[in-house]
C-alpha cells in the first residue's frame, strides 16, 4: 500500500540572529542554512496494517507524513501510496487518503460540523445513500448524537476531534495518516479515539499510519512501529521486539510482608523502587527465572508480578542512545 524508497527532504532556513544590527543587516543580505528533515528512509506498509511512527520532536515524522500525503515534494527518493505518486496529487489519489492533524482542524469554525460534512460530501462527490450510511456508522461508533448541530466553536476539544474524525473519514479513504490525533485530549477521550481507530481499521480494512507522543496510543494500536530520529530510520518492526532490544530487562514487582533492607534487595537486581512493603527490581531478561526463584525463597514475599518496563522509559533510553550520526537499523 505504501512504499518508500530513499525518501529525503531538505529545506533552507534563514538564520536570523538577535540584535538590532543583525536585524538591519538581514534587510539586505540573508544567511541560509540547509536543514535535513528526512534523510533517505525506506519502508513498506501493506494494506490494512496499523503502523506507529515514532521519534522525538523534530525527528521528521510530520515531514514524512506530509510527503506521503502529497503536501510536500521530496527533495529526492520515491514514494508510492495506493499505487499513486503522492507528489502528483491526482484526484484519484486524494480520494483514497485522509490526513488528520491534532490541534488543527478542517471544520468550519462558525458553523455546525454538519455543514462541514455537507461540504465534504460535495467535494468528494459522495453519493447520498453512501454518505448517509457512512455518516450513520461513524456517528454511532463515536457516539456523536446532537453534537453535529452545534457550531464548532461551542464544542470542547474532544468533541471537535470526534467531529474532525468524521469529517476526515466521510469519503471512506483507504489510507489514514494520523498526525498526533490525541494530543491535548483527556484520558477517556484518548481511549475513545483509540478504540475507534482500531474499530475503523478492522471494519474497513484501512491502512493506518499514526504518529504520536503518547505511548498508550502506540501500545494499544500499533503492532508495528517505525522509529525515526534525526531524519533516519532506526527501527522497523514489532513493538515487543523494540522493547526487547532496547531494554532487555524485566521488572519484578514484589509485595513484602516485612520491610527488607535495600542492600539485600540490591543483591538480586537493580532496585528501582523501594517503599512500604513494596519493592521493584529491574533484572535482565536472561536471568529472570532464577531471580524470581531467589526472591521467592529468600524474601518475605506476599505477591509477585513480572512486567516490561514502562514504554516511556524505553523510548527515553532509545532517543538518548542513538547518536546523531546513527545508521539505519542501528539498534
Amino acid at each position: 500500500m505504501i512504499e518508500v524508497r530513499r525518501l529525503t527532504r531538505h529545506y533552507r532556513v534563514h538564520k536570523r540572529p538577535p540584535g538590532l544590527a543583525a536585524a538591519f543587516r538581514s534587510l539586505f543580505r540573508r544567511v541560509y542554512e540547509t536543514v535535513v528533515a528526512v534523510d533517505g528512509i525506506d519502508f513498506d506498509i501493506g494494506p490494512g496494517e496499523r503502523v506507529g511512527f515514532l521519534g522525538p520532536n523534530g525527528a521528521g515524522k510530520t515531514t514524512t507524513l506530509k510527503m506521503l500525503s502529497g503536501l510536500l515534494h521530496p527533495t529526492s527518493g520515491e514514494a508510492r501510496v495506493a499505487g499513486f505518486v503522492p507528489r502528483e496529487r491526482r484526484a484519484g489519489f486524494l480520494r483514497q487518503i485522509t490526513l488528520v492533524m491534532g490541534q488543527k482542524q478542517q471544520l468550519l469554525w462558525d458553523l455546525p460540523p454538519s455543514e462541514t460534512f455537507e461540504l465534504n460530501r460535495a467535494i468528494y462527490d459522495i453519493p447520498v445513500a453512501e454518505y448517509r450510511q457512512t455518516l450513520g456508522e461513524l456517528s454511532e461508533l463515536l457516539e456523536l448524537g446532537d453534537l453535529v448541530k452545534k457550531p464548532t466553536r461551542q464544542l470542547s476539544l474532544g468533541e471537535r476531534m470526534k467531529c474532525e474524525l468524521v469529517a476526515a473519514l466521510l469519503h471512506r479513504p483507504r489510507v489514514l495518516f494520523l498526525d498526533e490525533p490525541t494530543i491535548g485530549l483527556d484520558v477517556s477521550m484518548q481511549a475513545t479515539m483509540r478504540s475507534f481507530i482500531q474499530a475503523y481499521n478492522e471494519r474497513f480494512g484501512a491502512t493506518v499510519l499514526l504518529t504520536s507522543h503518547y505511548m498508550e496510543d502506540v501500545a494499544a494500536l500499533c503492532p508495528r512501529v517505525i522509529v525515526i530520529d534525526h531524519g533516519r530510520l532506526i527501527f522497523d518492526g514489532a513493538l515487543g521486539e523494540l522493547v526487547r532490544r532496547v531494554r532487555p530487562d524485566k521488572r519484578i514487582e514484589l509485595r513484602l510482608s516485612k520491610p527488607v533492607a535495600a542492600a539485600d534487595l540490591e543483591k538480586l537486581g537493580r532496585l528501582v523502587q523501594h517503599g512500604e512493603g513494596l519493592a521493584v527490581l529491574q533484572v535482565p531478561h536472561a536471568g529472570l527465572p532464577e531471580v524470581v526463584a531467589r526472591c521467592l525463597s529468600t524474601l518475605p514475599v506476599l505477591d509477585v508480578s513480572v512486567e516490561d518496563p514502562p514504554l516511556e522509559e524505553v523510548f527515553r533510553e532509545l532517543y538518548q542512545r542513538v547518536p546523531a550520526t546513527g545508521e539505519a537499523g542501528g539498534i
Partner: protein
Amino acid sequence: MRAALRSFPTLLRVGFADAVAYRAEFLIWILSTNMPLVMLALWSAVAREHPIGGWGQGKFAAYFLAALVVRLLTGCWAVWTMNYELRQGTLSFRLLRPVHPLLHYLAENVAAIPMRGLFALPVAAASLWILGSGELASDPWSYAIFLAAVLGAFAINFVSMTIVGCLGFFVESSLAIFQVWFGVYLLLSGYLIPLDFFPGWLREASAVLPFRFMLSFPVEVLLGRVSGGAALAWLGYQWALVAAMLALLVITWRAGLRRYSAYGG
C-alpha cells in the same frame, strides 16, 4: 510608570526589529498609500488647461506630495491591533505585563516610522523638491513648526485610533465605527481634496475640526500657506486638541477595561 518608561526604548527596539523582519508587509503598506498620487493625477488633469481656484499644476503637485510625506510619517494601525487582540482574547496577556498596553501599541507604531522613512521619504521628499520647490515655505521657522505639526498629527491619529479601539470594549465591531471615522477623515482632512475647494460653510467648519490637524495643517505649514504667528496659534490649537483627546482616551480606556474585566476578559 517610571518602569514602563524605562522599558520604552526596548519596546521601540523590538518594534523596529519586528518592522525589519516583516519588511514585505511594510512595503505593501507603503504601496497602498498611493491615494495622494492618484488625487494628484486627477487634480493635475483638472488644472491642465489653466489653474483652478488659484491652484496650478505645480501647486497641486506640491500639495499632494507633501500630503503623501505627512501621511507616510503619521500613519498607524493601532485600531486594527486592538480589534484583533480584543477578538482573540490576547489582550489579557498584555494586561498581565507591567507595561501598559497602550504604550506597547505606541511603541509598535512609532518604531515603524524609520522603516517607512527609509523606503519612501527619500523619493517623496526628492519629488517634492524637484516639482514643487517654488511652493515650499521660505521661512526657516516654518520647518520647525512643520515638525511639531507632524508630531501633533501623529498624536491625533494614534489617539483617535485607540479611542475607537477602546469602543471595541463596548461594541461588537469597532472597525465599523473606524470606517465611518476614516471616511470623514478622507473628506475633511484634505487628503482627497484641498480644503480650499470646499464651499464656505464647510471650509469654516473643517478649519477647526481635528481632521484638518491630521493632515492639512502640517501641509499648509510646509507650503507656507500658514506661517508666523498664525501658524503658532494653530499649532497651539492642535496640541490642545491632542490633550483633550488624550483625556478622552484615558476615560474610555478605563471604562472599557472595567467592562472587560467584568465580563471575564
